[in-house]
């Protein structure tokens, strides 16, 4: 592996997303990408007796699909990297208890999806592991409890507020050839431009996404036209235009290529306020929809920049501003290698 300028890793060996697995809740299944997920649950409870168990079921299912598609058992996997939004990332911890694979817990809030892939690719590239299983999850009800109000509370709604995606995504990173390559990763800095409103994460995270994307193009020397899509995690309807303007001011025009997972996963008619968010937001879109299109070759090169707000409920009440981060990972279609 080699570092390219300041913040970008370029993997020396061909590293692949050998297989992926996704599981989602009812609202995501009814969204525009509904057909690209492996498993859709009809109820938010996913047949479990409480929300925590429901989230675990989602991650367990996503992991099972991923392993089944790769034709692998738990014992074939060298390392399990996983994260979620619950206190002490318990969903991941409890799944690791079941699958008994050596485990590293990851946390980068909603950027965890790409943080795990970048870390996994680096470990495989440097020969510390042959096969690394990555997984992230989020659940609307557990996140509401963690960060906002009880599920059934009829609280005030904010137009800038996002809606946590219920789902989980898993991916197997290895050197065994596949259709989607992981070629580079740009790791983000923590950026805080003074937004303290936890109901406006899109605006809070936009500068972090802009910083990572800007750094990526500086490091690689490419231009946005070298990408079919520049996808952000969960900037929503509010943060997306801000991101484009932030970069446009610096002379980088990503208007043509930019899309946001939070806006892709739901249709505008669905009651999700400013759009989707959560670890699973970027994970299910990347491992479901984008993976499928990269496999087909209808997308050649994509960078997914997952954005995370690194706050908790107490920092919000203490009126602290929100530190944010964004990690970018470049995926290339093997069919599009001649690009």
């Amino acid at each position, binding site marked *: 592996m080699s570092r390219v300028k300041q913040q970008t890793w370029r993997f020396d060996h061909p590293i692949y997303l050998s297989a992926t697995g996704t599981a989602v809740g009812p609202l995501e299944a009814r969204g525009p990408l509904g057909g690209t997920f492996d498993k859709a649950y009809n109820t938010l409870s996913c047949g479990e007796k409480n929300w925590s168990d429901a989230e675990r079921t989602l991650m367990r299912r996503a992991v099972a699909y991923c392993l089944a598609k790769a034709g692998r058992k738990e014992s074939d996997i060298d390392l399990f990297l996983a994260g979620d939004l619950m206190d002490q990332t318990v969903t991941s911890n409890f799944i690791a208890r079941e699958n008994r694979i050596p485990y590293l817990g990851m946390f980068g809030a909603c950027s965890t999806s790409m943080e795990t892939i970048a870390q996994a690719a680096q470990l495989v590239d440097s020969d510390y592991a042959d096969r690394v299983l990555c997984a992230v999850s989020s659940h609307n009800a557990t996140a509401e409890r963690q960060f906002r109000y*009880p*599920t*059934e509370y*009829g609280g*005030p709604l904010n137009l800038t507020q996002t809606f946590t995606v219920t789902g989980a995504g898993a991916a197997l990173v290895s050197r065994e050839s596949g259709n989607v390559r992981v070629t580079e990763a740009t790791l983000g800095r923590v950026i805080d431009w*003074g937004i303290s409103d936890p109901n*406006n994460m899109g*605006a809070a995270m936009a500068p972090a996404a802009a910083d990572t994307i800007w750094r990526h193009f500086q490091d690689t020397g490419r231009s946005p036209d070298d990408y079919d899509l520049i996808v952000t995690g969960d900037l929503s309807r509010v943060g997306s*235009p801000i991101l484009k303007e*932030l970069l446009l001011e610096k002379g980088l025009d990503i208007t043509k290529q930019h899309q946001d997972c939070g806006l892709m996963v739901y249709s505008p008619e669905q009651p999700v306020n400013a759009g989707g968010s959560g670890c699973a937001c970027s994970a299910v879109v990347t491992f479901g929809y984008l993976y499928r299109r990269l496999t087909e070759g209808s997308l050649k090169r994509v960078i997914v920049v997952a954005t995370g707000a690194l706050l908790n409920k107490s920092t919000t009440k203490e009126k602290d501003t929100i530190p944010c981060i964004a990690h970018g990972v470049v995926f290339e279609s093997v069919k599009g290698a001649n690009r």
Partner: protein
Amino acid sequence: MLNDPKNYSDNIKPYLPKVPYVRNCLKAFVSGGLICVIGQFLQVFYIHFFHFTKASAGNPTSATLILIASLMTGCGLYDKIARFSGAGSIVPVTGFANSITSAALEHKSEGIVLGVATNLFSLAGSVIVFGVVSAAVLGIIRLFLAQAF
């Protein structure tokens, strides 16, 4: 210029969705008013059929509204109504009932004592604290005013 970390929160204001204050107020007025109308019917009902006085009918009226709101919370309906009505369904006693019932439901999985009982007033507690404190303060003021005049 958005690339200005110091004034970022001011400069992004044009990018934020406009809050439809007038429409929100109207919705709150109509839906909150509707809850009060239902309450009025209940009060008349209790006076007419159960021979409560106008003053004493308040208790069974609130109790009925609380029961209805709690049942609707349990059935997952109250938060859907609140999406439309905003303050209209938060301010009346039904909103108070919703805040308690929803907290109870949320923490049910953690057990009766440390889950439900501990968290029952996690949202409503502040209402009770300020209600009791302001009642006490006003009561003392009233007492002194009554002495003085």
